[in-house]
């Protein structure tokens, strides 16, 4: 039987506000354990939360950028459960009156656009981190992350494949980065997803029983988890069993999910309105002000790239999948007359080398202007395309400007006829067979000889000039 996979993602994004959601501690990542906390975020007796207004602003930005309706009245609630990383034993979240609801984003897979619904976006606080590894006898808690603001973006079960799930995550990440509300660093846990997944025979209307996999923190693990869990559920059904509604933990190392707790064991969070905080009542004008201040979003920018620069859809999609990359491109294009060439360099050599080095686009070691100037050097004929690849490589490794590299390494195109005549002479002398072939009318032989000459000059010769000189020499004799 053929099955359809149904996926809904709950995405948590840490907001990049300077201070935490309910106190003035820094949200900075990576401080020494328990140094970014205070009595409030560690849940000391008697402390009270005060909502950071920036958090509301950032969440509203996210809501507007994902086409949500912004609630003029919303409130915060307590979600009660015991765990050592949650010092108050309740998380302040939003239950029945979230800040944003009924939005959507468009994703692209296989050249097709699909609209994915967003049920709601609400604000909440992050928990701390347990550190199990280094201590055999006990577990330690680091409260630095406690109270870092999060938004939870609850998606509709509109996704039908691992690829769609991935595209949805990538689009969300890119939107959140474009509007500057989250750095979305998955490796630091600032963007993570819970995957709700069920399968059903193709054509069946009602949804199958779903499972939830918590806290997936890379695109790769999301894709793998979706594929593995879908297969597991299908196997379960095919072998006459039933899928059990439960929470599962994805074990990325082993490539499988294991049961955490069943529906019966599920927490009763006993949500109730947080009495220490007042309702959030938003002024319409304030919301409209935020709407007006939203920057160009990925979809708009992508359209602009296609329209203004004539880039292929696919390239425009890749370039706008990351704000950093897209800004890098925009920056380079401003300093170059050849947007297409700039895009090709990014899509080709830059992406390749980043992948090779295992680096993120955030870490491109040279400014966008260098790439623009490199393209300029090729256009002016100062260096050849082949040499340019070398210069690019050096630029990436050393961070030096392209002109400096060309100068230091003596890589300018040699277009001095006098200097090249000797090279041409040498190539002709060393390859009598090819010369003979050429004279017999084999045009291909000329290409070989040009190649030899380029090699002789380590690629620095002006290929057109070499071509001309070779032809002249052979035609003359």
């Amino acid at each position: 039987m053929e099955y359809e996979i149904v996926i809904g993602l709950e995405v948590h994004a840490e907001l990049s506000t300077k201070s935490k959601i309910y106190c003035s501690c820094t949200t900075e990542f990576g401080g020494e354990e328990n140094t970014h906390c205070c009595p409030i975020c560690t849940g000391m007796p008697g402390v009270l939360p005060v909502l950071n207004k920036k958090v509301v602003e950032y969440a509203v930005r996210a809501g507007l950028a994902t086409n949500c309706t912004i609630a003029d009245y919303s409130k915060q609630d307590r979600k009660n459960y015991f765990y050592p990383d949650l010092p108050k034993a309740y998380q302040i979240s939003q239950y029945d009156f979230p800040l944003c609801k009924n939005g959507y984003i468009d994703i692209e897979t296989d050249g097709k656009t699909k609209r994915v619904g967003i049920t709601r976006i609400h604000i909440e606080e992050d928990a701390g981190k347990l550190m199990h590894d280094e201590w055999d006898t006990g577990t330690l808690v680091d409260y630095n992350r406690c109270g870092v603001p999060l938004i939870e973006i609850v998606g509709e079960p509109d996704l039908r494949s691992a690829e769609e799930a991935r595209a949805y995550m990538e689009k969300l990440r890119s939107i959140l980065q474009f509007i500057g509300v989250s750095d979305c660093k998955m490796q630091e846990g600032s963007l993570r997803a819970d995957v709700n997944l069920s399968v059903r025979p193709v054509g069946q209307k009602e949804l199958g029983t779903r499972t939830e996999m918590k806290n997936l923190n890379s695109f790769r693990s999301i894709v793998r988890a979706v594929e593995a869990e879908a297969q597991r559920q299908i196997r379960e059904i095919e072998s006459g069993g039933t899928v059990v509604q439960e929470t599962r933990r994805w074990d990325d190392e082993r490539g499988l999910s294991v049961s955490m707790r069943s529906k019966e064991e599920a927490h009763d969070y006993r949500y109730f309105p947080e009495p220490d905080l007042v309702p959030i009542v938003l002024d319409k004008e304030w919301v409209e002000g935020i709407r007006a201040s939203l920057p160009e979003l990925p979809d708009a920018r992508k359209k602009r790239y296609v329209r203004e620069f004539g880039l292929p859809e696919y390239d425009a999609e890749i370039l706008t999948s990351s704000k950093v990359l897209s800004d890098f491109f925009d920056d380079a294009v401003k300093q170059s007359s050849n947007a297409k060439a700039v895009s090709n360099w990014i899509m080709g050599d830059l992406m390749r080398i980043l992948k090779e080095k295992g680096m993120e686009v955030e870490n491109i070691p040279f400014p966008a202007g260098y790439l623009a100037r490199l393209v300029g050097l090729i256009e002016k004929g100062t260096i050849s395309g082949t040499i340019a690849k070398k210069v690019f490589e050096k630029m990436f490794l050393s961070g030096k400007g392209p002109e400096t590299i060309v100068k230091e390494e003596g890589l300018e195109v040699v277009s001095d006829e006098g200097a090249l005549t000797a090279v041409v002479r040498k190539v002709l002398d060393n390859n009598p067979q090819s010369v003979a072939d050429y004279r017999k009318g084999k045009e291909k032989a000329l290409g070989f000889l040009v190649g030899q000459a380029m090699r002789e000059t380590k690629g620095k010769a002006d290929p057109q000039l070499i071509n001309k000189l070779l032809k002249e020499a052979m035609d003359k004799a």
Partner: protein
Amino acid sequence: MELYELTAHELSDLLREKKVGAVEITRSLLDRIEKVDAKVGSYITVCRDRAIEKAREVEGKIYRGEANSPLAGIPMAIKDNMCTEGVLTTCASRMLSNFIPPYDSTVVKKLNAEDVILLGKTNMDEFAMGSSTENSYFKRTKNPWDLERVPGGSSGGSAAAVAACEAVFALGSDTGGSIRQPASFCGVVGLKPTYGAVSRFGLVAFASSLDQIGPLAKDVTDCALAMNAIAGYDPLDSTSADMNYPDYTRSLVNDIKGIKIGIPKEYIGEGIHGEVKKAVLEAVETLRRLGAECEEFSLPITEYAIPAYYLISSAEASSNLARYDGIKYGYRAEKFTDLLDLYKQTRSEGFGAEVKRRIMLGTYALSSGYYDAYYKKALQVRTLIKQGFDQAFSKYDLVVGPTAPTTAFKIGEKADNPLEMYLEDIYTVSVNIAGLPGLVIPCGMDGNNLPIGLQLIGKAFDESTLLRVAYTFEQNTDFHKNRPRI
């Protein structure tokens, strides 16, 4: 007269006239504590050295003319559920028996800014849950009027300390009557301010939507002085009211002509002790004689106030007290097998019976499937109670009635009957549910020579009218001059 017997404003005059120093006053109070607290048991912690050191510092400031507050140099006590940096804050619980806060509550900060002298931390019902101060992990506080009786609760330590002259004034907290009922039992003045008038930051939460800090004092003037020190907007408390706060001493006017007073029939009907009723009605007569217009009226749904209160307060408490899990601070069970067992053992050993009862009640009320029938229903009752008061205050400036159905009862008398104990709060909880201010002032003695307190309930943020009526009553009666013999 001994120094420890005087009120804050009397001591303040002596200090200003340089007839006496802050150190001398503080020593007088500390000696008094040393002499009588073994019998009364008001304090969990006495900060003797710290108090004297502070008194020296303040004395210097007073002499240099740098201390201008009328409370400068006045020794006082704080209920042990308000955080004091560096001073043990236990909530009278084994759970926090070793907890020394790294920060000051806002009220403590404000009092420090007024140069008051902190004598120590007073006993209470564990986590403020109780009406007799019998639910303390540490000790039983006795009523200074009769050492076999309870001082009321949960601020029993603060009320007893003021009544026994072990503190010039004290702070208590009131979630369902915890300032007013002990004030009534101990014959002192107690004020529960409007919800939002005094910051809760640093007050260890029992029921966040009901808790409010307020003063217990020997007279109305001291009450006003204390309010001037502690009331005000606090950006650290989101439920704190951002408004202009009056100078409460301006309400100390001996005139209530034309003030309209309503007396709820339901408060003087079934269940009230005869002597209490008599004293309250006589007080009403006094008010009438002083120019107030008094009449009885009906305050409906009073009978639902107690169940609504115990649902709301227990629900919030079940969440507020969840943080005491043995992980970060406070008590941790010595023996446990795993994380869940650590929680279970710690909370089983760390909390007393009444606290556990309320946590269970509150957890149940919030559980899925029961939320609508209990918690939500209680919130609806809350709205109706508020509306009832709104209606009353469209006609009256003030609502007056008893504080508790009885005077101080015997230790152990109600300890095994929680429901009977809960009925102690019948006239006080509605005030918390509606977020209104309530003031208790002595209005008589019963046949056992035990004090009876009159409760005045005001419009939200209208503490001024409460203080004015109470001051007038005080100026024209002598009940506040009664002191227990210890």
